[in-house]
């Protein structure tokens, strides 16, 4: 009986790792870029793994490098973290957390609920077991932290700082914008956001991100009530 449990555990872990491979192929290079940017920003190498452990969320970690260097106020850091990762709220709807019974494994599964883990389970909703799910998530964290460490190693071997590498973050958000706005439904939000940020740059040039994000949320709330009032 124990031997049977042992084999099924091994198969499940193998299945979890296999499920992680395709997305991991995209995660690792971004992790390398993240580690490289940490070194380029003049931060100590351990900031890369420290960030990846404190908050396992790629795009936010990339943003935090610049924010830490600029000693951005904690309120801005908090608001940015909240809004950038707000999408995670909806992952609970379908993520198969119910298969994980062990308390610690459950906590780990929630803590490592990254976009990639959600996406893989959303694409294949059936057949998840505790070992398969948690080993997939652990594999993702391994790729990401490993990528970051590779990046800091690479960065420390470079003879000089490469000026302009920080553009990668801007380019990443440009591609994310293109992916998020593939139909005309996205246009009103896009315009409201552009307007909000433009106003913020003029009225609060040193806190444009904070003010811009708040203004944008305010315009969305107004839009929500306007649409409800019109439809009522």
């Amino acid at each position, binding site marked *: 009986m124990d031997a049977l449990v042992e084999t099924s555990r091994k198969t499940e872990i193998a299945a979890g790792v296999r499920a992680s491979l395709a997305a991991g192929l*995209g995660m690792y290079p971004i992790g390398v870029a993240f580690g490289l940017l940490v070194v380029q920003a003049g*931060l*100590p190498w351990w900031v890369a793994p420290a*960030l990846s452990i*404190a*908050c396992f969320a790629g*795009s*936010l970690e990339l*943003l*935090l490098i*610049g*924010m830490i260097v600029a*000693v951005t106020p*904690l309120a801005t*850091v*908090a608001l940015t*973290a*909240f809004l950038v*990762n707000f*999408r*995670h*709220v909806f*992952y*609970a*709807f379908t993520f198969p957390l119910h298969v994980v019974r062990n308390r610690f494994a459950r906590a780990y599964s*929630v*803590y490592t*609920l990254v976009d990639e883990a959600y996406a893989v389970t959303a694409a294949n909703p059936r057949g998840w077991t505790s070992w398969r799910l948690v080993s997939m998530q652990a594999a993702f964290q391994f790729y990401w932290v490993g990528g970051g460490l590779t990046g800091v190693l690479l960065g420390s071997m470079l003879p000089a700082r*490469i*000026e*302009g*590498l*920080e*553009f*990668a973050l*801007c*380019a*990443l958000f*440009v*591609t994310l*914008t*293109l*992916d*998020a*706005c593939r139909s005309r*439904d996205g246009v009103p*939000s896009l315009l409201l*956001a*552009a307007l*909000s*940020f433009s106003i913020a*740059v003029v009225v609060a040039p040193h806190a*444009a*991100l904070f003010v*811009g*994000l708040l203004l*944008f949320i305010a315009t*969305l709330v107004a839009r*929500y009530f306007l*649409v409800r009032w019109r439809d009522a």
Partner: protein
Amino acid sequence: MLDLKYLAAVLATVFVINLALRAVPFAILQPLRKSRFVNTMATWMPVGIVVILAASTFRSVSGDVKHLVYAAMGVAITVAAHLLGGRRTLLSVGAGTLAYVLLVNAL
């Protein structure tokens, strides 16, 4: 010089917010699922948030006129690569960043 107390405060802040955003919804799943407000926000928010982040990071790489021109060219190349190259994020980000780095260092 990096202020360790500040760094620790940043790490603690993002740890708590990130974990809460992932954990709390499992506890209040039903009301969340039914909320029209939350669901509408979910469809409206992402594109606006990412465009604000794109604009904000663009601002930080375009400090003067010279950098502004290079950054604009970098964005144009990123967009072109993304739309023509089949939306392969790594390829698009790589092409745009390479262009910006070359422009900044060569000219």
